[in-house]
């Protein structure tokens, strides 16, 4: 397929989209003006529509395919939510519009803050962080602020389980902490003895996910939180797996001091091919004073933004304005549609779907990573036995599933389990879809036994075959340079 630059022709552009009449030049002095032309596409409006429409048709998406990408919660992104968030009053509002002209959005944001606090069992919420990773950065920064406010500058370490998502240690390092990794036990829970050994007066905090990245519930969380708090440290909750416990368990009740939620996971905001997301943080009273700005406050007459005067010890700001407000709005609309009964149902059906898949795959002869544990909203299978017998890897399963018309589960995460697939169906999938996935997996397993090469060289029906990653990283062809530019 051609690049848009290949179909460009000099002088073409979408005339209906450019301003009517303009003077040919400006009065800006020439030494400040651009001498070279930027190389943007030169195509007609129809060419643009056709080009991008056809590109979209090459993508797998929730709208088109079952997408059991573990840890990403690829549930249905409601069309009505997207439409309402795009209403003119919301879409056209400037971030710096006066408060009197912003009561509609401010009320939505305030309501969302309140709902998220209730949902997580925490005291206060800031919507500011623009993704889970930024939420983690904010959370760890608040932990730092807490210790420093108490004159404790010796706490230089953050504990992270070896199974943690890579953003956890990366965020801790961005906050200038050293990362101390602790192992996970064979049963999927944290190794308590290792935790005890790792805790010291140098520990500022621990970052946990519950359910963990292994897809199982951290059963000894009460003991963990006691050990950590007794050591003078704080607990951070990574909300990536919150879909498993929404309406059932609250991180605040588990003893966590600070958490982030991934609105693009649990709250169904569209994933957009890699983003945007939002990672609001919620805290208990210990950390309220340090929340990132802005928050929304309620007054006698309406709603307003909080400022540094309201929160003088705030850890600061994470963006120029208020973060990904359009995502907050979508999450709010979705949460209002779910309501109190709907939220509980989300985790119940997500967990039902995952356990059903786990049971059926086990019956079909697949090896579960934690066969004695309940699945939560996701679970892990490993094909290491098939790698040994036939040389087939998790990556091969992932690619062959594409030929069966399904997006692959997450592979090779968590790093702990060799040749693993992390499978998360979500609650919006029907039983028939789950059965079809099992059928596909069974079919591939048979192919592995009779014609392994077919699986090892998959995919066969996509627009491209397996791509040469090594060549991509060696050649580094990252921008198009045509002959005329050289």
């Amino acid at each position: 397929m051609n690049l848009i630059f290949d179909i460009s022709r000099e002088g073409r552009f979408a005339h209906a989209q450019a301003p009517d009449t303009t003077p040919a030049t400006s009065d800006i002095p020439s030494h400040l003006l651009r001498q070279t032309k930027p190389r943007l596409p030169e195509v007609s409006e129809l060419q643009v529509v056709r080009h991008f429409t056809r590109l979209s048709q090459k993508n797998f998406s929730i709208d088109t395919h079952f997408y059991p990408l573990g840890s990403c919660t690829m549930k249905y992104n409601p069309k009505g939510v997207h439409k309402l968030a795009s209403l003119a009053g919301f879409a056209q509002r400037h971030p710096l519009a006066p408060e009197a002209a912003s009561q509609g959005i401010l009320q939505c944001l305030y309501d969302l803050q309140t709902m998220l606090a209730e949902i997580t069992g925490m005291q206060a919420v800031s919507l500011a962080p623009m993704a889970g990773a930024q939420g983690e950065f904010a959370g760890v920064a608040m932990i730092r602020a807490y210790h420093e406010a108490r004159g404790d500058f010796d706490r230089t370490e953050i504990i992270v389980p070896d199974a943690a998502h890579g953003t956890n240690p990366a965020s801790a390092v961005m906050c200038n902490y050293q990362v101390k990794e602790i192992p996970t036990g064979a049963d999927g829970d944290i190794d308590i003895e290792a935790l005890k050994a790792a805790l010291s007066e140098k520990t500022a905090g621990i970052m946990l996910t519950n359910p963990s990245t292994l897809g199982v519930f951290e059963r000894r969380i009460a003991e963990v939180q006691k050990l950590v708090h007794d050591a003078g440290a704080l607990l951070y909750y990574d909300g990536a797996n919150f879909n498993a416990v929404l309406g059932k368990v609250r991180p605040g009740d588990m003893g966590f001091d600070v958490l982030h939620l991934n609105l693009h996971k649990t709250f169904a905001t569209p994933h957009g091919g890699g983003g945007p997301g939002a990672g609001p943080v919620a805290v208990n009273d210990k950390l309220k004073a340090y929340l990132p700005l802005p928050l929304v406050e309620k007054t006698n007459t309406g709603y307003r933004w909080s400022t540094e005067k309201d929160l003088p010890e705030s850890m600061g700001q994470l963006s120029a304005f208020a973060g990904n407000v359009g995502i907050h709005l979508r999450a709010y609309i979705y949460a209002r549609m779910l309501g109190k009964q709907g939220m509980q149902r989300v985790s119940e059906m997500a967990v039902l779907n995952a356990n059903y898949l786990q049971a059926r795959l086990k019956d079909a002869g697949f090896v579960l990573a934690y066969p004695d544990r309940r699945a939560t909203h996701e679970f892990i299978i490993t094909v290491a036995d098939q790698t040994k017998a036939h040389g087939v890897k998790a990556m091969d399963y992932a690619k062959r599933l594409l030929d069966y018309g399904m997006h692959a589960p997450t592979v090779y995460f968590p790093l702990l389990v060799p040749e693993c697939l992390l499978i998360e169906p979500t609650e919006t999938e029907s039983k028939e879809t789950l059965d079809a996935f099992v059928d596909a997996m069974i079919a591939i397993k048979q192919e592995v036994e009779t014609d392994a090469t077919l699986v090892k060289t998959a995919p066969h029906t996509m627009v491209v075959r397996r791509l040469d990653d090594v060549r991509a990283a060696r050649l580094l062809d990252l921008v198009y340079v045509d002959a005329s530019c050289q």
Partner: protein
Amino acid sequence: MSNIPEELKYTGTHEWLRQEEDGSVTVGVTDHGQCMLGDLVFVELPEEDIELDKNQECCVLESVKAAADIYSPIAGVVTEVNEALTGTPDIVNRSPYDEGWLYRMMPVDEKDVTNLLDAAAYRDCIKAEAH
């Protein structure tokens, strides 16, 4: 079973070291190490004349799926780096002990070399890792 030349010294983090006649040492990554990484796409080498401590991170070997740090087996001053790897990092995969050497340095103390693993000990090390 990976190649482990008898005359070299090793570390538990998959570096090898060779003592040269002029008192300098050459450092590289073992066959086992390069195999674990996969096809290399980039090698970051230290600057010449830089002082390294024992176990100091001095190189980064990058493949598509990992980026591994190389830890200096002993302390010393870097005298030469293998420039050929900049354009062709996969030399390390093809010839980890010869053309794929990473850097040379003058040791602070020659005796430090004796603390490193010999081929047999390194072989045991790899076996232990596999379990």
